[in-house]
């Protein structure tokens, strides 16, 4: 049977653009049909923006790659119309076990907070994630949305101009040229776009190799996450065991930097290690083995005129904490509504500089978190190893040490604290919903709050009066009127009111809070809206 990642999903087809007498201009061209490029394209197409995705391949990601998708990613996926298939197929787990040397030191139950539509995260092979995205593109096409994926279209040259970008594209039938008002480069960690434009990719560099093995187990094995520090079968390194759908298990073995990759990959070297890891009597089959090399770094700026970088092309992190694809989806979530306003002439180009500000903040947070995990998992000095081992030894007996154990922190959405788009916080409310924060979900009648907040500016009122809508700077803001009388679980109160009796929130199309006050104030909220689209600069 062929694997999904071996079947072309967007085969090469000749486009009319290849026969045009002069290069055709598109509003947006996306390079790369990975999870990030596809998210950008779906987001824009849903808003009616014409978008062409170019990829030099014609298949989904080879091998499973990313397997942990966070709640925020699922919430964004809901907005993109593909949350359900992801969650239906994905695996959920709550129990984690931590091993040190040859023994289990403790286990934990994640017990995620109640009252959210989506789980804290799911495990799912990246190829499924991408397959569902391609399916969503097909559905949008059927509905007449202006979106195209062009397989085996390799971008080979880029020309930048003040108000557009030119592209040279190689196909199996020769090359052609295109123009784009805006180019979004989602062409992965090795980003040819970055190289063609001669741009930097700097930062603190960690280098490490991981052996990734997907195994199929015959026996019933529990749906848990197991993490080993310094295990006997991988001395001085770490190991991770994680469940995926279809009875497939992901095994990550950290190998260090100075290794013989070809030798490590051979089944006669891999199988004994896995046997030692799982126990002698567990039967398994090796499905896929690969070695990955990771680095932690980012571009100095993500926006370069009309070229905007997103996903791995803009930043790369170590795999601990599953931040690659998850942060890439937050990039496009942040970018697409801004780009739409700019394309419609409702905001100035400078609004896109706030994509830089907000997402560089996000990238730095991710790099910081994954660097800290790396420092814990692979201590860099003798004393850092002594301290790390002390934490692990203590964690076996004392609860206090367990929060210090760092085998990768769950990827939480970034709060755009201090963003120029935020208005000063005028509500002494819960910190988790302060300006810049992604809105926390809450139960709402038979459904949930977040789906009500997507894709446009919303005025969320809780126990407060306000007009049903207002228009400012050409943008209509619609009100969502809620009351704590319907708040049976008290989640709305806890997450949005705190000790206040009422509150009014201005919420961005990407579900981040722009402003909040105890009650509606016409001029304050008009100013907040102008500020949120980059048209008001004083705080």
């Amino acid at each position, binding site marked *: 049977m062929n694997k999904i990642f071996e079947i072309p999903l967007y085969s090469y087809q000749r486009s009319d653009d290849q026969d045009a007498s002069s290069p055709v201009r598109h509003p947006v061209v996306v390079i790369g049909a990975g999870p990030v490029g596809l998210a950008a394209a779906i987001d824009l197409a849903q808003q009616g923006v014409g978008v062409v995705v170019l990829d030099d391949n014609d298949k989904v990601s080879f091998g499973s790659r990313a397997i942990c998708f966070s709640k925020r990613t699922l919430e964004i996926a809901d907005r993109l119309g593909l949350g359900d298939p992801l969650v239906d197929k994905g695996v959920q787990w709550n129990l984690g076990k931590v091993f040190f040397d040859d023994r289990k030191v403790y286990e934990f139950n994640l017990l995620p907070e109640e009252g959210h539509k989506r789980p804290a995260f799911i495990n799912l092979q990246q190829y499924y994630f991408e397959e569902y995205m391609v399916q969503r593109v097909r559905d949008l096409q059927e509905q007449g949305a202006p979106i195209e994926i062009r397989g085996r279209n390799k971008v080979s040259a880029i020309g930048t101009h003040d108000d557009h970008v030119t592209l040279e594209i190689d196909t199996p039938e020769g090359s052609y040229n295109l123009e784009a008002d805006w180019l979004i480069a989602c062409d992965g960690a090795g980003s040819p776009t970055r190289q063609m434009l001669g741009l930097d990719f700097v930062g603190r560099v960690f280098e490490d190799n991981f052996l990734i093995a997907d195994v199929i187990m015959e026996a019933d094995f529990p749906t848990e996450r197991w993490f080993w520090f310094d295990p006997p079968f991988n001395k001085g390194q770490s190991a991770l065991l994680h469940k995926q759908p279809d009875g497939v298990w992901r095994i990550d073995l950290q190998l260090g930097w100075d290794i013989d990759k070809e030798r490590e990959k051979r089944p006669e070297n891999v199988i004994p290690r896995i046997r030692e890891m799982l126990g002698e009597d567990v039967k398994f089959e090796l499905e896929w083995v690969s070695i990955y090399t990771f680095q932690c770094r980012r571009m100095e700026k993500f926006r370069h005129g009309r070229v905007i970088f997103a996903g791995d092309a803009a930043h790369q992190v170590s795999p601990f904490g599953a931040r690659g694809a998850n942060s890439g989806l937050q990039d496009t979530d942040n970018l697409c509504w801004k780009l739409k306003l700019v394309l419609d002439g409702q905001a100035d180009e400078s609004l896109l500089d706030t994509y830089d500000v907000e997402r560089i903040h996000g990238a730095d947070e991710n790099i910081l978190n994954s660097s800290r995990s790396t420092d814990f998992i692979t201590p860099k000095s003798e004393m850092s190893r002594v301290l790390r081992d*002390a934490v692990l030894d203590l964690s076996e007996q004392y609860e206090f040490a367990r929060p210090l154990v760092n085998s990768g922190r769950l990827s939480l959405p970034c709060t755009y604290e201090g963003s120029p788009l935020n208005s000063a916080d005028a509500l002494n409310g819960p910190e988790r919903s302060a300006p810049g924060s992604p809105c926390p979900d809450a139960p709402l009648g038979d459904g949930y709050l977040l789906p009500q907040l997507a894709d446009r500016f919303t005025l969320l009122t809780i126990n407060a009066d306000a007009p049903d809508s207002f228009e400012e700077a050409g943008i209509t803001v619609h009100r969502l009127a809620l009351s704590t009388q319907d708040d049976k679980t008290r989640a709305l109160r806890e997450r949005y009111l705190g000790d206040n009796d009422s509150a009014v929130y201005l919420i961005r199309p990407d579900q981040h809070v722009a402003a909040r006050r105890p009650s509606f104030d016409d001029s304050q909220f008009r100013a907040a809206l102008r500020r949120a689209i980059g048209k008001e600069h004083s705080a």
Partner: protein
Amino acid sequence: MNHQDQLILTPNIDRADDFYADLLSAHEGLSKPESDALNARLVLVLANHIGDRDVLKQALAAAALNKGE
């Protein structure tokens, strides 16, 4: 900064000689790596007891013997 946020750097241990003897005897018979591990665990246990990040920062600075800070 109120009183509780302030690292105590004046004598505060009751019967200091006894405590010091306890500390030495905890290390008695241990190899250097075992002693290092014990010290590390002790630091973590004490740090958790203190908990307050401001006090911990002051403690780190005090232990570094950076005069004039």
